[in-house]
């Protein structure tokens, strides 16, 4: 023990020489600077991890109710689940996350070309059709593609709202008659809470929307 104390004293004495002092100060500064940087980096990393972890899961909800028969169907689907399942389906017209929609180019109307044109068009009403049987309105509002259809015979009102990013994702990396469902679902993860489809009529009401709640209660 005495030997150790003696050694320490000797070490203390040797480090107290004037030449060693600036070195000591410099090393202390370096020592102080490093943890600050490390702490800052750690704080940034933690904040990022918390931000990612705190990002709420997104859900696609479907609610169908029939006021006459008091039937109610509720579906709550986590978007992450859809994101992982859809690319794995290779059945019928849905393959590798893309759905083959043969009639997209029917009547010489190419939906993809229209969406490309709408992308650069200013906001406003694009199409208004008023017929004895129904009214149709297509517009670009607040960065969203909006379609309103009123069927006067069945008293049905159909509202479809597609956020622009989702519309773009639908036509991304596809051939003329395909829609990219996988990309659209990924895009839905990043859009604000919104009602995508609502159908109200005498017989049934349908609502499809996305939010961060696991149930629609």
């Amino acid at each position, binding site marked *: 023990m005495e030997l150790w104390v003696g050694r320490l004293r000797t070490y203390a004495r040797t480090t107290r020489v004037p030449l060693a002092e600036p070195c000591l100060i410099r090393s202390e500064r370096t020592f102080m600077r490093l943890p600050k940087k490390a702490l800052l980096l750690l704080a940034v990393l933690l904040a990022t991890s918390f931000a990612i972890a705190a990002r709420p899961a997104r859900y696609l909800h479907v609610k169908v109710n029939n006021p006459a028969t008091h039937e109610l169907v509720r579906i709550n689907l986590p978007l992450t689940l859809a994101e992982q*399942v859809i690319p794995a389906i290779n059945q019928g017209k849905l393959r590798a996350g893309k759905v083959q929609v043969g009639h997209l180019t029917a009547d010489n109307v190419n939906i993809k070309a229209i969406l490309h044109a709408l992308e650069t068009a200013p906001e406003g009403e694009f199409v208004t059709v008023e017929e004895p049987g129904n009214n149709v309105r297509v517009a670009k509002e607040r960065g969203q593609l909006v379609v309103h259809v009123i069927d006067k015979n069945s008293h049905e009102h159909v509202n479809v709202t597609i956020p622009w990013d989702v519309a773009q994702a639908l036509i991304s990396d596809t051939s003329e008659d395909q829609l990219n469902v996988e990309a659209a679902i990924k895009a839905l993860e990043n859009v604000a809470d919104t009602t995508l489809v609502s159908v109200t009529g005498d017989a049934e009401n349908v609502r499809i929307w996305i939010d961060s709640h696991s149930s629609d209660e």
Partner: protein
Amino acid sequence: MVFLAKLGIGVLGTALVGGAALSSEGFIHVKIHEKQADGTHLTLVVPAVLAPVTLSFIPRQQLAEASRELRPYMPAIDAAIPALEDCPDQVLVEVTDPGEHVTIEKSGSSLVVDVNDREDLVHVSVPLRAAHSALREIARASGPI
């Protein structure tokens, strides 16, 4: 005396290991309650690990048709079940009408189906991992996946 003690420890150890192995994948829980006066009340709790094991003893030709129908959906099932395991607990589907209430719920690591209609009350809880193993076993009946 020492021999008996050793034997006891051996039996107890085997029972513990066997019990742990049997319950490793959870339990399939089936409860059927017929609402009529003399209706059946059945409660069945089966170790989930037995489901794929039992399926492996069924002759392949008996499962051939089910296997053929199931195989195209296996990639989707393989993707869906692990994804579902990662999802928080929640009601996935709920159907309500005046005579019936059906819910399909993810609860813990199980998928729970509850049906409550005018005649029956049915509760089925299946551990997802066991369901996955069982479905893969059925799909394998008509050749390797």
